[in-house]
């Protein structure tokens, strides 16, 4: 029987978040599973990709039927998680579909947010875990390596992963249209909640270093200021701060305007009419909408940013055909490599089969002929075997290269020549 690639998994597509939480595996748990799995005779190779949105088991197995129940038992018996698997059956893919699945995952095509970037590093981590695990995993190692390069190619050659798809990232992207670098820009954050922190984090990741945090609660404001090595200021200081900052992000739940048109107008002269980007992601809005009328001010609220996001998502969707093409190309290369793995042991055993017959026959006559005749017979038989094997081997290699080699063909050859017995006797000999 030839070995097959198989994936068994649960993701946001077939399991709710509570169910996915129960399936999540830590690094240690993955290593524990791998150790136990390789002892099973129906598992040749295994690795797991476990993130908040998906847990997928990748196997190389000659007998795929017991895999699903083994995975379920492992959760319930070894990890004692008591998961009701009847609630959510896993999806499974075999052969080429497994390859396609992992390549799509690595490319962000299967992510909850199309073109998400984090998944590629998660696939890389799964590959690192695989490399650290004991035992040989040539097929999965190559599969994950190719998946990472496929993910990279999709990100480089298409716009599938470009354009912000979250409010805080959209705010940063917008600011990038005004400022080429945030290193010298002063950013005023009004509010110290989750949204303000996330936006500050994204600005910081993009090079921003100068933050001023303004918050009603001093304790909370100072805590956030400490996180970003920022200054803390009181709400009453906003009019003064408007004279020196380049970007203002308002993210509070205040029911009134915290920044008014008069404050901005008064600051304009002092700031020498420099551009001012104001992003209001508060609900209700905290920045006076009239400020939009001031020529030097670019005012964006949450609705505008959501428009940016929807537009980016449409653009990402337009990139799907290009991404699919890249995935197809990478899958084709991997399939070709994987098929060549299957054909190599077959060719080797086939050669051994013929060699064994040749030697047996020579042995039968070696006492009846002279030394010279024996050498001539050996030469003749070698040539004969080589010629007999030439066409089948070339044909097999050709099928593998052209991706036309199906498991049935290999299976037929193994049955015809009893290669399984041949393999067993080789194993016995080596033992």
């Amino acid at each position, binding site marked *: 029987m030839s070995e097959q690639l198989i994936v068994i998994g649960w993701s946001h597509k077939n399991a709710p978040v509570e169910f996915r939480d129960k399936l999540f595996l830590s690094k240690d748990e993955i290593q524990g599973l791998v150790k136990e799995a390789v002892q099973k005779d129906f598992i040749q190779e295994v690795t797991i990709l476990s993130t908040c949105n998906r847990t997928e088991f990748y196997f190389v197995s000659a007998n795929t039927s017991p895999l699903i129940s083994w995975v379920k038992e492992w959760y319930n018996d070894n990890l004692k998680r008591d998961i009701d698997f009847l609630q959510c059956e896993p999806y499974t893919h075999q052969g080429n579909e497994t390859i396609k699945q992992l390549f799509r995952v690595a490319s962000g095509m299967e992510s909850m947010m199309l073109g998400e970037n984090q998944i590629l590093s998660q696939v890389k981590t799964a590959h690192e875990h695989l490399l650290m695990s004991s035992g040989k995993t040539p097929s999965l190692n190559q599969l994950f390596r190719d998946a990472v390069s496929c993910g990279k190619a999709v990100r480089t050659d298409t716009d599938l992963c470009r354009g912000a798809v979250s409010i805080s990232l959209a705010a940063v992207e*917008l600011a990038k*249209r*005004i*400022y*080429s670098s945030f290193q010298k820009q002063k950013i005023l954050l009004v509010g110290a909640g989750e949204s303000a922190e996330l936006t500050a984090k994204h600005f910081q990741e993009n090079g921003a270093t100068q933050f001023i945090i303004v918050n009603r609660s001093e304790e909370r404001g100072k805590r956030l200021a400490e996180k970003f090595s920022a200054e803390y200021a009181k709400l009453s200081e906003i009019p003064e701060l408007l004279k020196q900052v380049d970007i203002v992000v308002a993210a509070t739940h205040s029911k009134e305007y915290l920044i008014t048109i008069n404050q901005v107008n008064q600051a304009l002269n002092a700031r*020498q009419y420099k*551009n001012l980007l104001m992003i209001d992601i508060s609900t209700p809005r905290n920045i006076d909408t009239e400020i939009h009328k001031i020529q*030097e001010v*670019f005012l964006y609220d949450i609705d505008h940013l959501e428009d940016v996001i929807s537009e980016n998502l449409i653009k990402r969707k337009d990139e799907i055909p290009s991404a699919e093409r890249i995935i197809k190309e990478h899958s084709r290369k991997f399939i070709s490599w994987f098929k060549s793995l299957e054909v190599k042991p077959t060719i080797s055993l086939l050669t051994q089969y013929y060699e064994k017959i040749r030697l047996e026959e020579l042995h039968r006559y070696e006492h009846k002929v002279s030394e010279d005749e024996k050498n001539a017979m050996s030469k003749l038989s070698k040539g004969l075997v080589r010629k007999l094997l030439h066409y089948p081997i070339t044909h097999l290699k050709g099928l593998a290269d052209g991706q036309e080699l199906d498991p049935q063909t290999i299976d037929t050859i193994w049955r015809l020549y009893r290669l399984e017995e041949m393999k067993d006797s080789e194993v016995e000999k080596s033992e």
Partner: protein
Amino acid sequence: MQPLIQPFNVLLPMLYGIALIYYGFYLRNGNEQSGKWAPNILLSALVVHLLYFIARSNFQYFPITNSFDSLSMVAFSIAMIHLIIERTSGEGKTGFFFISIAFVFQVSASMFHVVDIHIHELLTNPIFGIHVFFTLVGISALAISAIYGLMYWMLAKQIKSHNMGIIYRGMPPLDQLEAMGRLSSILGLVSLGLGLIMGHFYAYRVLGILFPPDLKIIINDVAWIFYLLGWAIVKIKNYNGLRLSKLAFWGFIAYAGAIMAANFISTSFHQFN
């Protein structure tokens, strides 16, 4: 020299055309490879263009014998200024716009290339040649600065109106457009200044007067003084953003309008044909 010059008339538009295609790809897809290749191809075009000027003049006269030669020189100036700005700022996305102008000018110059050239005596003087070269480069740089101003204006308008169109996606950030415009206007100011000084020096040598009563000369001198004053005010008052971009744009429109009017009104030794 004609057989030697003829291949340039095919090669130059071709090279500018290829550079334009690469800049186009870079603008449209942000493709890094195109972004790397475009300035290299443009540099090759400029080197070939320089060789063309040498072959054309044979070191005996300045190679602007007719209007189409002037177009070729303007194409060279625009491409050169753009390349300097691109190399300094590291931003090449605006290349498409400038190289398309250079391409159109060079195609016209190559298509209408005149075989029988009448060489005006003035052109054989190297000082006059330097004056013409610096003046053309200066005017081209100021024109580029005005285009940067216009780009800034358009992008700022798109950002302000929450319109994420092609300009929004393809243009460099506002602060970079401003920096490139500033650099271009400084190059223009310096180059035009040098051109005018050489012109006055040449006038003094030929006519014996430093400031000949020629409308074109007066307009150019006044425009240069205005640019210099404008630059000083911008520096002192720390003018920036939209105000600066509008100033660069309208300033050049006024300058170009005045030059055109002067050309219409008076004919002087600046016309060679």
